[in-house]
């Protein structure tokens, strides 16, 4: 207990948990009291945000060098393994808490409008509150197991919310896919925890990171193994190659869920984990190269797929995968602050983009609903010219687009530039990093291109929705546009969080995070760039971003686009990109089908039927029968034979007794 507002930190996750319990009870009771559900669902997260603000203010006032750990109860007291239910307040968890509760509150408010007519209104808010609880547990945990509980919990909520409209098989399948792919990653996380325990004898963050430089040889196999296994967990949760394919499918859930879970918070958990374990990663240069390499590759790869998607949410999903790749380039390079900075700005502009697309889908859905048409409300080929009908949404989404494209002075420019600068700086020692930088630049070009494409197809050119439907298109209610405006302001001005010294800023976020990142940063040689080099890099990045936007503007012909039902199939490379490089098909052929084949032909027909049923169950029965048959041969029914056996027995016993 510190005697400050930080003592209240337990309330931060507890309030959403209370919201979940109350809303869960309301959902089970089948109530129609939407007012109560809204008050509990939104109120609990807003209250949590309020407490967070007090906690962070107290932290800023104290500004401790070490994390403030609160021990609530002993959880796993097993011999020398002492794991408590501990929460820790430090600069990193403070940033994450603010993002989760802040962006979370806005998305909760937006959901009030978006989900207004849904049957499962109470169930929706119960799950959303539960998600916020687990996400806060994840970021506040003071040891690996508590973080892991949150890690698993957000995965569960993700599953529940992707399959929210579970009556359609496709949605339920998408939920299962997300859950199963995450399990693969979780396996890595678990094994990493076992190894950390084996080498350092503890799972508490403070102890592990203090002991790590001594207990684990820098660059050795142990620390490389631990970090790579942790990163395997991150590839699952944060949708990186090779486990990214669940995220685009996760768009089957309600759009605010995509914004909250699959863009702003949960999928950044991997980035958070790497930043949290920065000491371990700093000890393993190989792992750093892998993390940054996978990130760079994912950033470019996902961006190419986004070029040819027609579903507005799928474009944003691949964009999220790509931007998460950027964050991993940042944290992999050792520029933890840059990675967290991009995590924050991305939370703003990507949440805005998703909620904006939600507003578009809302309008499209209402228009089609009013005319009883059965067209795809998410296909951009059915949109066009929506800026006339949804001026607020269009304006705000343009802000987010410019932010993600890296155009100054929008927030994304600063964070993306910082990551690319850090990668370039690391290249002075290891040329590999120049390649990552190149990948990042190429991805930036594609990002600007596909985002401009999305905006042009959705909001500009002639309208393709249909003459009868057009009259029903309208802007969303204020409860939905309000959060968009706040996020728009954040996307516009988020850069001030970490304004680089180059343009007269104080790198506030970087200095704020220093107590957390210092231990790791001390282990990695610093790479400073000359100011002229930095200006050149900024110039290149901005030129690339502008080139993408102008290129899209010039190359795309809005007049010839036809609605989805009249569209001709893609050909050539366009088809490959539209089919997402056939990765799902390849996974199906290389992994799913062989597993099914082995399960069917070998595990079922040979192992189960042959070994378990045959040798095991029937074999035991057969053995008993043979022994029984042998025994029954003794029962001849011949008295003489019995008597002989009796005499033999007596002689035998006497012989033994008299010896």
């Amino acid at each position: 207990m510190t005697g400050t507002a930080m003592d209240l930190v337990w309330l931060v996750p507890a309030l959403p948990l209370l919201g979940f319990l109350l809303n869960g009870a309301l959902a089970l009771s089948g109530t129609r009291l939407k007012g109560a559900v809204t008050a509990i669902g939104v109120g609990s997260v807003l209250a949590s945000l309020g407490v967070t603000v007090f906690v962070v203010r107290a932290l800023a006032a104290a500004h401790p060098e070490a994390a403030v750990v609160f021990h609530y109860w002993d959880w796993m007291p097993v011999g020398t393994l002492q794991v408590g239910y501990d929460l820790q307040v430090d600069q990193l968890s403070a940033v994450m808490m603010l993002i989760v509760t802040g962006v979370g509150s806005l998305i909760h408010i937006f959901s009030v409008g978006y989900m207004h007519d849904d049957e499962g209104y109470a169930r929706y808010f119960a799950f959303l509150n539960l998600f916020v609880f687990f996400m806060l547990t994840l970021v506040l945990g003071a040891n690996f197991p508590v973080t892991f509980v949150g890690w698993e919990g957000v995965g569960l909520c993700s599953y529940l919310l992707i399959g929210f409209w579970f009556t359609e098989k496709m949605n339920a399948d998408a939920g299962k896919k997300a859950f199963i792919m995450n399990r693969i990653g979780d396996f890595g996380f678990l094994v990493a925890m076992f190894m950390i325990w084996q080498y350092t004898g503890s799972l508490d963050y403070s102890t592990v990171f203090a002991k790590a430089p001594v207990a684990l040889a820098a660059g050795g196999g142990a620390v490389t193994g631990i970090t790579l296994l942790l990163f395997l967990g991150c590839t699952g949760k944060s949708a990186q190659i090779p486990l990214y394919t669940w995220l685009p499918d996760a768009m089957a859930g309600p759009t605010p869920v995509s914004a909250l879970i699959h863009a702003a918070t949960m999928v950044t958990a991997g980035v958070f984990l790497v930043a949290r374990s920065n000491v371990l990663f700093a000890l393993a240069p190989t792992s750093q190269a892998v993390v940054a390499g996978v990130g760079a590759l994912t950033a470019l790869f996902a961006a190419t797929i986004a070029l040819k998607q027609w579903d507005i949410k799928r474009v944003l999903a691949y964009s999220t995968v790509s931007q998460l790749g950027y964050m991993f380039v940042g944290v992999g390079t050792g520029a933890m602050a840059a990675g967290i900075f991009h995590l924050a700005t991305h939370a703003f502009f990507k949440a805005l983009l998703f909620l904006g697309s939600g507003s578009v889908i809302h309008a499209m859905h209402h228009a089609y609903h009013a005319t009883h048409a059965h067209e795809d409300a998410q296909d951009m080929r059915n949109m066009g010219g929506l800026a006339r009908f949804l001026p607020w949404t269009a304006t705000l989404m343009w802000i987010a687009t410019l932010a993600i494209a890296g155009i100054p002075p929008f927030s994304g420019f600063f964070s993306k530039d910082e990551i690319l600068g850090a990668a370039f700086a690391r290249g002075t020692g290891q040329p590999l990093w120049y390649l990552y930088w190149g990948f990042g630049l190429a991805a930036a070009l594609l990002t600007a291109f596909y985002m401009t494409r999305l905006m042009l197809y959705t909001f500009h050119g002639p309208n393709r929705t249909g003459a009868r439907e057009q009259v029903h298109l309208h802007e969303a209610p204020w409860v939905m546009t309000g959060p968009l405006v706040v996020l728009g302001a954040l996307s516009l001005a988020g850069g001030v969080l970490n304004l680089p010294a180059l343009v007269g800023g104080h790198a506030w976020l970087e200095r704020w995070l220093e107590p957390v990142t210092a231990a790791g940063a001390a282990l990695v040689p610093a790479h400073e760039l000359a100011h002229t080099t930095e200006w050149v890099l900024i110039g290149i990045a901005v030129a690339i971003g502008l080139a993408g936007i102008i290129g899209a503007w010039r190359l795309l012909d809005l007049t010839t686009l036809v609605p989805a039902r009249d569209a001709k199939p893609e050909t050539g490379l366009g088809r490959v990109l539209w089919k997402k490089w056939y990765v799902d098909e390849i996974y199906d052929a290389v992994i799913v089908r062989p597993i099914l084949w082995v399960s069917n032909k070998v595990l079922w027909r040979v192992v189960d039927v042959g070994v378990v049923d045959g040798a095991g169950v029937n074999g035991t029965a057969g053995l008993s029968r043979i022994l029984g048959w042998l025994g029954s041969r003794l029962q001849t029914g011949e008295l003489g034979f019995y008597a002989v056996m009796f005499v033999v027995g007596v002689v035998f016993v006497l012989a033994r007794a008299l010896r």
Partner: protein
Amino acid sequence: MFLGPSLAVSAVLFAIGTAGVLLRRNAIVIFMCVELMLNAVNLTFVAFAQRLGVSGQIFVFFVMAVAAAEAAVGLAVILAVYRHKETVDLQHINLLKG
């Protein structure tokens, strides 16, 4: 006095009796062999009684009494079986065989 030879005779008699019980099939003969075994035991009692006191000889009377009772019951059973089956060959008396 004569303990060794007496016990030897007793053992031989007992073995003959046992062999008869095991090998013969006629119920009457088997019955007689059982009597032979009892008498072999009686001989042992008497032989040891010379050295260890008269209680062995008392036992012999008990055995004779029990053997007489047994002979009465046993022969009655055999007669009953013969009336029923017209044979005393044990091979054919297998009603209880499963």
